[in-house]
């Protein structure tokens, strides 16, 4: 592996994304029936996940300070933030506890690339997951079409930054929790299923009116508040403070640093103990 300049790194990233994307496309074209069923079930699951909050908002003409279009925007944002890890971090990269707990991390360590590069590219599967974005985009487009907020280039940039930050927070949380599998491979093998479920179910409600302690918990220990509520509030101007739009990106920086620290400690533990068990289940399928 030659070079480590930014240009070389970018070239490698693009080459790897291109390769994994092409592999995903070929798989999709080979097994169209399974793909159709999976996509359909993904779309139904996504719609079902937001249905209860959406129906509540429609029935009571909004929830608290939030109007129905604002709630719809927040739900669209939540779905988008939930879908992006599927697109970029498939093959259990987002569910890292499975790879660690099953001893499959050895397969990562024998690849001649920095770990961050492997984790950033290996799960890229845009074609098989892309259709799951449709409900998210529809839920975002409808309130924006009804003028819930003026769309400008600057606002779109802030929107993009906040979405990336929310995804980074979700993945960092997943990495921190999943790293427990370094210390308890069997017990924590499936812990990321629970951690993702926790985030997915808590991110769908506006947290205004909660007690300060609970709100703080939902912005730190279990950062579900940063996956839709807080950034939507900032983007829609519900929280009038000008700096609010930067809070989620700053929280993301802290979350990524913390996740990196925990993961590195986990890796050191892995170097000491290795994997005491190996299951092939879920490896590259």
């Amino acid at each position, binding site marked *: *592996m030659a070079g480590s300049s930014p240009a070389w790194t970018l070239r490698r990233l693009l080459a790897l994304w291109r390769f994994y994307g092409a592999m995903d496309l070929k798989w999709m074209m080979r097994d169209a029936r399974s793909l159709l069923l999976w996509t359909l079930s993904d779309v139904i699951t996504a719609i079902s996940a937001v249905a209860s909050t959406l129906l509540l908002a429609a029935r009571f003409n909004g929830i608290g300070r939030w109007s129905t279009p604002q709630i719809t925007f927040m739900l669209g944002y939540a779905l988008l933030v939930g879908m992006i890890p599927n697109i970029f971090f498939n093959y259990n990269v987002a569910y890292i506890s499975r790879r660690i707990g099953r001893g499959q991390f050895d397969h990562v360590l024998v690849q001649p690339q*920095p770990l961050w590069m492997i984790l950033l590219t290996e799960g890229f599967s845009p074609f098989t997951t892309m259709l799951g974005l449709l409900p998210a985009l529809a839920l975002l487009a409808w309130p924006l079409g009804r003028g819930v907020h003026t769309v400008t280039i600057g606002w779109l940039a802030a929107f993009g930054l906040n979405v990336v930050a929310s995804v980074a927070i979700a993945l960092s949380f997943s990495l921190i929790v999943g790293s427990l599998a370094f210390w308890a491979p069997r017990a924590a093998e499936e812990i990321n299923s629970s951690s993702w479920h926790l985030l997915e179910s808590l991110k769908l409600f506006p947290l205004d009116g909660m007690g300060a302690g609970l709100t703080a918990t939902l912005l730190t220990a279990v950062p579900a508040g940063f996956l839709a509520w807080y950034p939507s509030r900032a983007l829609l101007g519900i929280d009038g403070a000008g700096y609010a739009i930067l809070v989620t990106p700053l929280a993301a920086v802290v979350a990524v640093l913390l996740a990196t620290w925990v993961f590195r400690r986990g890796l050191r533990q892995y170097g000491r103990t*290795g994997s005491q068990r190996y299951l092939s289940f879920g490896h590259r399928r």
Partner: protein
Amino acid sequence: MAARDRSAISRSDTVVELSGVHKVYRQRQRSANLSQVLSSLLHPTIREVEALRGIDLRVQRGEIVAYAGPNGAGKSTTVKLLSGLLAPDAGSVRVLGLDPIRDRTRYVSRIGVVFGQRTELWWDQPIAASFEWKRVVWDIPRERYVRMLGLLQEVLGLHEFFHSLARELSLGQKMRADLGMALLHEPEILFLDEPTLGLDVLAKRDILTFITDINRRQHVTIMVTSHDMADLEQLAGRVVMIHRGSIAYDGDFDRLRREYADRRRLSIESVGPAPLLDGAQLVSSAGGRHEYVFDAAHVKIAALLDQASAQTEVLDVETHRAPIDDVIADIYEAWQREAGAPVPAPTS
């Protein structure tokens, strides 16, 4: 490094160097007794298992080294240390002049690893896609990829299943594909952990032939572990035997047989019942043919034949070396009997 460049390098280079390597695992002890389960929540009992106790090992470029030992001896731990998957608690591991953990990315681009019970193949993709994956991730130049792919397809017979899905292949085909993948980037060293596990006789023969062939053609240094000593004897000139985390023997198979026990089999065909031979053990007797085992280091074959002739009319005699598995079984048995006592083993 391409094979043609590598061949110019002295074959006497040391490529693997383990010095005083210790590895200890800590195991929490569990009890079936409820009160002990409760007390161990507060005061867990930890047992320390010394997987490796000050291993010193050097391997020269181009060698095939068999790494053998009973279950739990420390074979897989050593392979994991050499693959950069584990760090030693003490001592140093240097391979190709690199530290497998600290220089991980540079290091793994120069080695190949195959674990017999695992696969690097993409399960739901054709083998061709896994090879292409290897080319992209290892950043193998196109010219080298095409050349190595041609060679590997030829010697491993990959053509017949190159476009089949990995999950559709037999165990032997998967192992051939995994070996091919491991060699695609022309590694200087190949670590093979139980590469013939579960394979049928034909598949095993193909794999063994391939390993010796690739060592000869590409000058790849190979370290291979297996429980099947006959496989190892067929492959390697040098065998390193590990027992309770220490190297108990390092040398060739002939010396191993001589120094531990030169076990032979003697087959006598006679008219009457099996003669009783002092210094040999009767293992089977049917249809006038009697099979004995004896240690040729201590018992002369002529003396056995004299005894037999004195007791019965000998019609035919055959003698041959016992299979290496029998020799190894004797050694393991002796080690078990010594139950933890230091093994008085010669090392070269």
